[in-house]
C-alpha cells in the first residue's frame, strides 16, 4: 500500500470510516437479529483496514517513478486471498462430502450441519477462490495486454478488499443461519447491495485501464473479462431483487415467486456458470496458455466465434435445469435447444486451446504448469459436452436430482476451473514477484497428479452413483410397481459417497501443496537477475499502425 498517494490514503480512510459507521448502524439496528453479528464483522473489518492505512499514512509519498511500472501489489494480496479461500472452500467441501457418508460428523451442532456448510463450500470455492483468482489475474492481464498501468492505486484495493468482505459476510452468514436459499446467490440483501458497489467500481476500473491502453486492439482475454464483469452484474442484480423484512432484519423476501422465480434463479444459476466459471477462466486460458507455451493462439477467427457464441447462447440455456417441471414446455425446449448449440462455441474454445499446443507438446510433457492448463482445456471440452448431453430432456429425466449433476459440476469446477487457476498461478507468481522460477518444480508435479487423481476419482464416483440412483428410481417390477424404495437407493450410494470424499481430500491436499510451494517461492527463491525490460508499460505516443497483433 506504500504506493498510495496522500490523497488516496485520505480517501481510503474516509471510506473505511464510513464503512465502520455502517457497521455500527447494522449492529445497532440488528441487535435482536443475525444482522447485528454482521454489523460487528463489518465494523471489525473496516477498523483493521483503517489501522493498516493509518500506519502507512505518515510514510513518505510514493516514488514518482512508480507510474513507469505496472501496479502489482494488489495482485500479490489477491493471490494470497485466492490460496486461502481455496483451502477454506475445499476443506468445507470435503467435510460436507464426509457428512453424507458419516452423518454424525456435524457433531449435532447447528452451524456445522450439512445444509449450512454446503453453501459455505460453494461460496468459498466459487466466489472466494474463483472470484479472487479472476480479480487478481484480470489486474495482471489487463495491464500487460494493454501495456498500461492501472489508472490509480486506490480502486484496485477497494475492489479486492470490498469483494472479500462480501465473501466473508456470505460465508459467516450461512453459519449463523442467514441465507436467501437461492443456489449460488445465498448472500442476503445488504451483502448483495455491497457487492453491487464493489462490482461497479471493478467495471469502471477495468474500462479506465482499457482506455489507457497503448495497443490499438483489445486482446481476446479482455473480451472475456469484460463479459464476465458485465453479465455477472446483470445476473446478480436481477436475481437478488428482494425486499428486506426491515432494516433491522437480515431476512428478505425475493420479489419473484414460484415458477417465475425458478426461471430467474436458473437463468442466474446457469449463467453464473457461464460468465463467472467459464468466461472469466477462458480469459485466463487465452493469456496464460500462449504465454506458457510460447505459442500464439491457434486461430483468431475461432476466438471470435466462440466468444460471441458463448455470450449469446448461454443466456438461453438456464431452463434446462427445469425439465419436466411446472415451467411452460416451450421454455424447457428452448433451453434444451440452445444448450445443445452451445457445444459449438465451447468446443471451438477447447479446440483452439489444444491446437495452440501443436508444436509444444514436448513442453506439456516436461512442464507440469503447462500440463495443468492443457488438462483444464481438456476437462473444459469434456464437461461442456456432458453439459449439452445432460440438457437433452430424456437424458435429464434420468440424471436430474441425482449425483450425476454433482459429478458434472465438479468435472467443470475441479477439472476446468481449479486446474486453469493453478496453471495460471504457477505462471503468474514468478512473474509478479520477479522470481526466476517456482520454489519446487517437483511439488508442482506432485500437485498436478494429486489434482488429476482427485478429480478422476470424484467424477467417476458421482457418475456411478448418479446413474445407479437414476435407474433405481425408475425401475419397475414385473407387476408394474416401483422396485426400490428411496432408502434402497440411498443405501446404494454410501460406497460412492466415501470414494467421493476421498477424491476431494486428494484435491484438497494438492491445494495445500500449492500454497506451500507459492509461499516458499515468495520467501526463498532468488529474484530474477536483471530488470525485465519488456515487462513495463509503454511510454510515449502510440505508434501509428503498429502492433495489429494482440499484445504478448
Amino acid at each position, binding site marked *: 500500500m506504500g504506493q498510495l498517494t496522500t490523497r488516496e490514503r485520505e480517501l481510503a480512510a474516509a471510506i473505511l470510516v464510513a464503512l465502520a459507521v455502517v457497521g455500527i448502524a447494522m449492529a445497532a439496528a440488528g441487535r435482536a437479529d443475525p444482522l447485528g453479528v454482521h454489523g460487528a464483522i463489518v465494523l471489525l473489518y473496516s477498523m483493521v483496514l483503517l489501522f493498516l492505512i493509518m500506519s502507512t499514512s505518515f510514510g513518505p509519498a510514493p516514488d514518482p517513478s512508480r507510474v513507469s511500472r505496472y501496479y502489482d501489489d494488489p495482485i500479490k494480496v489477491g493471490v494470497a486471498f485466492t490460496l486461502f479461500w481455496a483451502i477454506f472452500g475445499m476443506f468445507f467441501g470435503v467435510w460436507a462430502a464426509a457428512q453424507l457418508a458419516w452423518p454424525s460428523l456435524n457433531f449435532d451442532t447447528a452451524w456445522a450441519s450439512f445444509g449450512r456448510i454446503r453453501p459455505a463450500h460453494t461460496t468459498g470455492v466459487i466466489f472466494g477462490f474463483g472470484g479472487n483468482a479472476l480479480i487478481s489475474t484480470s489486474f495482471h492481464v489487463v495491464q500487460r495486454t494493454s501495456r498500461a498501468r492501472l489508472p490509480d492505486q486506490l480502486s484496485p484495493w477497494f475492489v479486492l478488499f470490498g469483494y472479500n468482505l462480501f465473501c466473508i459476510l456470505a460465508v459467516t452468514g450461512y453459519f449463523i443461519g442467514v441465507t436467501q436459499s437461492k443456489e449460488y446467490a445465498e448472500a442476503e440483501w445488504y451483502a448483495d447491495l455491497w457487492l453491487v458497489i464493489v462490482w461497479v467500481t471493478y467495471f469502471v476500473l477495468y474500462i479506465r485501464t482499457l482506455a489507457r491502453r497503448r495497443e490499438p486492439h483489445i486482446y481476446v482475454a479482455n473480451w472475456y473479462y469484460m463479459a464476465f464483469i458485465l453479465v455477472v452484474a446483470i445476473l446478480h442484480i436481477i436475481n437478488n431483487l428482494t425486499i428486506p423484512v426491515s432494516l433491522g432484519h437480515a431476512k428478505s423476501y425475493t420479489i419473484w415467486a414460484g415458477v417465475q422465480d425458478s426461471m430467474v434463479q436458473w437463468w442466474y444459476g446457469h449463467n453464473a456458470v457461464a460468465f463467472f466459471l467459464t468466461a472469466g477462466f477462458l480469459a485466463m486460458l487465452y493469456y496464460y496458455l500462449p504465454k506458457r507455451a510460447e505459442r500464439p493462439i491457434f486461430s483468431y477467427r475461432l476466438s471470435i466465434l466462440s466468444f460471441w457464441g458463448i455470450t449469446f447462447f448461454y443466456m438461453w440455456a438456464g431452463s434446462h435445469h427445469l425439465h419436466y417441471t411446472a415451467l411452460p414446455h416451450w421454455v424447457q425446449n428452448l433451453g434444451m435447444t440452445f444448450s445443445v448449440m452451445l457445444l459449438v462455441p465451447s468446443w471451438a474454445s477447447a479446440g483452439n486451446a489444444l491446437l495452440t499446443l501443436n508444436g509444444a507438446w514436448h513442453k506439456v510433457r516436461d512442464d507440469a504448469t503447462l500440463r495443468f492448463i492443457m488438462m483444464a482445456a481438456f476437462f473444459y471440452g469434456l464437461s461442456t459436452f456432458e453439459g449439452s448431453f445432460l440438457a437433452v430432456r430424456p437424458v435429464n429425466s434420468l440424471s436430474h436430482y441425482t449425483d450425476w449433476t454433482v459429478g458434472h459440476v465438479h468435472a467443470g469446477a475441479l477439472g476446468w476451473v481449479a486446474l486453469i487457476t493453478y496453471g495460471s498461478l504457477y505462471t503468474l507468481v514468478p512473474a509478479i514477484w520477479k522470481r526466476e522460477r517456482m520454489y519446487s518444480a517437483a511439488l508442482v508435479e506432485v500437485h498436478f497428479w494429486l489434482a488429476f487423481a482427485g478429480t478422476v476419482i470424484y467424477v467417476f464416483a458421482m457418475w456411478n452413483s448418479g446413474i445407479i440412483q437414476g435407474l433405481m*428410481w*425408475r425401475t419397475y417390477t414385473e407387476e408394474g*410397481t416401483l422396485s426400490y424404495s428411496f432408502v434402497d437407493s440411498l443405501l446404494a450410494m454410501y460406497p460412492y459417497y466415501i470414494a467421493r470424499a476421498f477424491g476431494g481430500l486428494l484435491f484438497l491436499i494438492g491445494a495445500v501443496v500449492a500454497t506451500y510451494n507459492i509461499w516458499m517461492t515468495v520467501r526463498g527463491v532468488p529474484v530474477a537477475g536483471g530488470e525485465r525490460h519488456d515487462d513495463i508499460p509503454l511510454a510515449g505516443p502510440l505508434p501509428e499502425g503498429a502492433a495489429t497483433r494482440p499484445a504478448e
Partner: protein
Amino acid sequence: MPELLHRKLERTAIGFVLAIIVAASVGGIVEIAPLFTIDETVENADDMRLYTPLELAGRNIYIREGCYACHSQMIRTLRDDVERYGPFSLAVESRYDHPMLWGSKRTGPDLARVGGKYSDFWHVAHLTNPRDVVPESNMPAYPWLARTPLRLDDLGSHLRTQRSVGVPYTDEMIDNAARDAFGQAVPDSQQASGVTERYGEETQVSAFDGVTTRVTEMDALVAYLQVLGRLTKAAYRNTAAPEQPPNPND
C-alpha cells in the same frame, strides 16, 4: 469482411461493452418476460390457501437450515416421479412462494406432498435424530429445534413484507400474526380459533412438538412440513396423464 468488422469493434471498449450487453440480453428477455403473462403460466386454483404465520416461520427455518440442498419440492411429469411422490406439481402450488424451493437435488426424497403423510410425532422424532426412525438415513439431526423458542414478535413484519411482494395477506392477518402462530401450536388456547377463521378450516391446529407451554422452532418446521402439498387440491383435480419416461426395461 466479418473479420474486418470485428477488428473495428475491438478498438473501442464502449462499443464492445454495448455489444456484449445486447448479445447477452436477448435470451433472458425472450424466456423470462412472457412468463409474467400469468394466466397462461400459472393455473387457477380457487381453493389456494396462504401459509399461516407459523408455517411461514417454519418455511424460513427450512431455508435457514438449507433443507432445499437435499430435498426437492417439484414432482416432475414422469411416471416414476408421480407414482413415488404423488400428482405432479403445478405452477399454482408455488404461486405465493417467495422464494420457490423447487430444489435441484434429491439426496433425500421429494417433499412436495409430504404434508399429512407422516404424523407430527414421526416428524419430531425424525428431525431430532433421523436414524431413530430411518436407520439407513444420512440426514443431519436437528435436536436444537425443539429447544429453541420461535421468535414471534416480528411475524407481523414478515407478513407485511410478503404482502409487499404480492402475497394477499390482509391487515387482520398481519395484526394477529404472533397470536395466530401461538394459537396454531397450542390447540386449547383461546388464540387457536382465530387461526382457522383467518386461514381456513383446512388449517392444521396441533401441538406439533407435543409441548403446549411454548412455541418452538420445531413446532414451526413441523407445521410447515405438514402443509406441503396441501395448500390447494388443484393437482389432484388435474387429469393430464404424466409423461412416460424412457423405460430401460421396455
